[in-house]
């Protein structure tokens, strides 16, 4: 009854695999030939049924934990941050500079976070929750991201808290805290440990600082210069360390 060719073309159109010209021709034909429209509608219904009833299930937590262990580096965590703090800020900056050469340019998570920061800055709306009060920002993020977020007060160091937002990486919410120093914004994304490497990098013209502690990996993105961003990273890491040792 229905021509094989109609079925094939309906699928190509539905799957977005026709080139622009063929797609336009197909759409014109769709309007003129009810039998083709019926074939197309049938495939669209099938797609809808499939997507509706086969949820995008996440891997079991147990499996994820095992594989994270498999991919964990042999030496204990935070080797370079510990060394850098010990060597002082000069060492921190020097080491960060050294690491920059090795930062992966094709890290998709990093690229996505940098675009998120850029979009946030350009839109003039860098946060989903605007507040200089960490007791507002922290619960807002905690309610939306399973990991919650660490939101230190760095006002005394010259980094004013201005809000928080959510980035989405691989379908998961990533809590992101936003600070300001003079007219420069800094976005700090907090990720599970598996998510990122360490070290400084330059991505799309933004400076990036990456570090980790026992629980999380952090990525700070800003148009601050690398030295000031390194200071920010050091203060943030120190505040996080203090908060953990004083927490009940």
């Amino acid at each position, binding site marked *: 009854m229905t021509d094989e060719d109609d079925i094939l073309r309906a699928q190509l159109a539905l799957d977005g695999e026709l080139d622009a010209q063929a797609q336009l021709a197909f759409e014109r034909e769709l309007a003129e030939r009810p039998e083709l429209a019926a074939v197309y509608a049938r495939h669209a219904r*099938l797609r809808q049924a*499939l997507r509706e009833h086969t949820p995008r299930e996440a891997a079991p937590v147990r499996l994820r934990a095992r594989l994270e262990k498999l991919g964990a580096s*042999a030496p204990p965590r935070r080797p370079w941050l510990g060394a850098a703090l010990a060597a002082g800020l000069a060492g921190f900056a020097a080491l960060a500079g050294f690491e920059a050469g090795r930062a992966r340019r094709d890290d998709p998570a990093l690229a996505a976070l940098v675009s998120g920061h850029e979009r946030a800055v350009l839109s003039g709306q860098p946060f989903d929750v605007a507040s200089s009060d960490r007791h507002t920002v922290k619960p807002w993020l905690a309610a939306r991201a399973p990991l919650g977020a660490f939101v230190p007060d760095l006002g005394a160091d010259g980094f004013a808290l201005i809000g928080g937002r959510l980035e989405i*990486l691989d379908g998961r919410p990533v809590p992101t805290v936003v600070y300001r120093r003079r007219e420069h914004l800094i976005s700090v994304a907090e990720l599970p440990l598996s998510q990122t*490497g360490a070290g400084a990098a330059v991505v799309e013209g933004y400076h990036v600082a990456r570090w980790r502690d026992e629980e999380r990996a952090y990525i700070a993105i800003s148009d601050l210069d690398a030295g000031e961003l390194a200071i920010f990273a050091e203060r943030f890491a120190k505040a996080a360390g203090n908060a953990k040792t004083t927490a009940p």
Partner: protein
Amino acid sequence: MSEDTAKRRFREIVLPHLDDAWRLARWLVGPEDAEDVVQDAAIRALGALAGAAPVKPRAWWLAVVRNTALTHARKRRGQNWNHANEEEAADAADPSPDAETALIAQGEGARVREALGRLPPLLREALMLREIEEMNYREIAAVTAAPIGTVMSRLARARAALARLLKVDHDG
């Protein structure tokens, strides 16, 4: 040194696409075996990553999962599992009146999942990669090591079989 490199690549390539890998394995070998398959695949991947870095990381990792799953399924099902069954059972899979009655008796969600379960594995795989993982034909071809023409024909047959099983061709 190369072990560190392998682990770093593993964290950058395998872990971010773990959910995709899990779903693919689940559709290929079923939920009971999917966990073992993904873990075996991860061990293989870690070994391979000590060498060169893959050009298309996600497709590469999913291809490792897929090969592990197919090896696993072939071992498990012995002589019943061969390429002919993987692809060609599509027409045998559906139009018996019993099968239709059984399907119609259930709710829509259960019907869809059961109908999917009746598709031959390679057709189901193509369909799931397209509809659930939202890959384009080129990506599906890379993961399944099949020419694009084969991907198109598998998709067409999968959809035709599924439409028959679910009676989507009848209006409504």
